[in-house]
């Protein structure tokens, strides 16, 4: 067991972890942040995606100790964004289990690329699986959020932490 200092959604917290514990387990079980979802737990589905220093990572594949001294952002750290509004407007989900992972990944995409092309959007979002197959609506939501930002619609928070 070793103490690890994590900065999650701007909160600095020291947790005691086993070397083999994943970031997903620590977020959910020690920090009570259940937004990142356990899906395949094998790095395939992307439901557990979080940002580590602004970069999307699969929390089920990342050892918690590897995130020490990094800025971790979960879906709980991205409230009231244009992207979430766009997901609702475009009906970009059905069961919603995959939605946090898509939101986090798409948020990073929009932070990185002002106007992602269809190819860029596909390249980023093919890391996530939606078993309800809402892919068309999800891509539409990303376009809608990018357009809303262009048009100066309020709501998009700055990247925290």
């Amino acid at each position, binding site marked *: 067991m070793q103490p690890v200092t994590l900065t999650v959604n701007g909160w600095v917290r020291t947790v005691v972890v086993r070397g083999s514990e994943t970031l997903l387990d620590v977020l959910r079980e020690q920090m009570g942040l259940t937004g990142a979802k356990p899906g395949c737990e094998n790095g395939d589905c992307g439901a557990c995606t979080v940002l580590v220093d602004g970069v999307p990572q699969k929390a089920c594949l990342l050892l918690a100790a590897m995130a020490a001294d990094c800025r971790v952002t979960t879906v709980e750290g991205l409230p009231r964004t244009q992207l979430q509004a766009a997901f609702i407007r475009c009906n970009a989900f059905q069961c919603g289990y995959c939605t946090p992972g898509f939101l986090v990944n798409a948020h990073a995409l929009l932070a990185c690329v002002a106007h992602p092309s269809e190819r860029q959007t596909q390249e*980023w979002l093919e890391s996530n699986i939606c078993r309800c197959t809402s892919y068309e609506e999800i891509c539409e939501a990303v376009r809608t959020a990018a357009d809303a930002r262009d048009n100066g619609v309020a709501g998009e928070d700055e990247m925290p932490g």
Partner: protein
Amino acid sequence: MIPFDFEYLPAHTTAEAVAYYVSRAKAGQSPLYCGGATEVVTLGRIGQLETGAVIDIRHIPSAQVLTQRHDQVVAGAGVTLTQIADSVLIAETFPLLAASAREIADRTARNQITLGGNICGQIFYREAVLPLLVCESAVRLAGPNGLRELPMDRVFDQTLRLQPGEFLVQTATDTVLAGAPWVYVKRRKMGSVGYPVVSAAAIRVDRDIRVAVSGVYPFPVRALDLEQALNRRELPLSRRIEAAVSTIRADLVLDDVEAARGYRLFVLRDVLREIVESLDA
């Protein structure tokens, strides 16, 4: 959840990494070096890997290099595949490496998987190896006996043949070969993410084509006899391809749930045709 525990040891210099390895090996912990540690998690979960200590080499400055220096393109083992795929420098100087990196796993996974982790991993395909094989890159290794540099073809035989306690720090590739005319082909069963049925990296040097393939055998390989057959320009294309495929050891060809042996060879023919048509032009 990984059903065993281990020490996580971030190393900041090659000497520190090796010292961790030596002390933990002495203590019977079967230490492992890691980059993104994705295989530690995925294989550890299903009992195909066990260790008492994981040594993270990503923070070693020389493993984070991505540069052109003295007529060589140098890539650190701790650089992620996304960094390679997105690098302007690599796109300009070693586009074949960028192309192979871009096709591995998915983008979010590539944000974590490192060059060294892919080259030294246990998964069959290890496609980042392919450009290094055809370009006869050098590998720079660190271990208990110090640093050494070796040509890829001397140290890579199915896997990177490391001595106990040794790890990959950098690869170095001649800029002329890294910039040679190239083609990268990856054929999957379906979709644009996932393991290959066949992947191939090829370059043309003078008039000759060099090819390294993954997905045919349970290891990446540059097959010189296959290249020799493929370069028999006196033959029509279809016969060159048949001659090349006839050099494949059928008993070694992968035959699994991803693709049957016969299908892999069928796809290999198609891949070789695309390579020749692209590089012969």
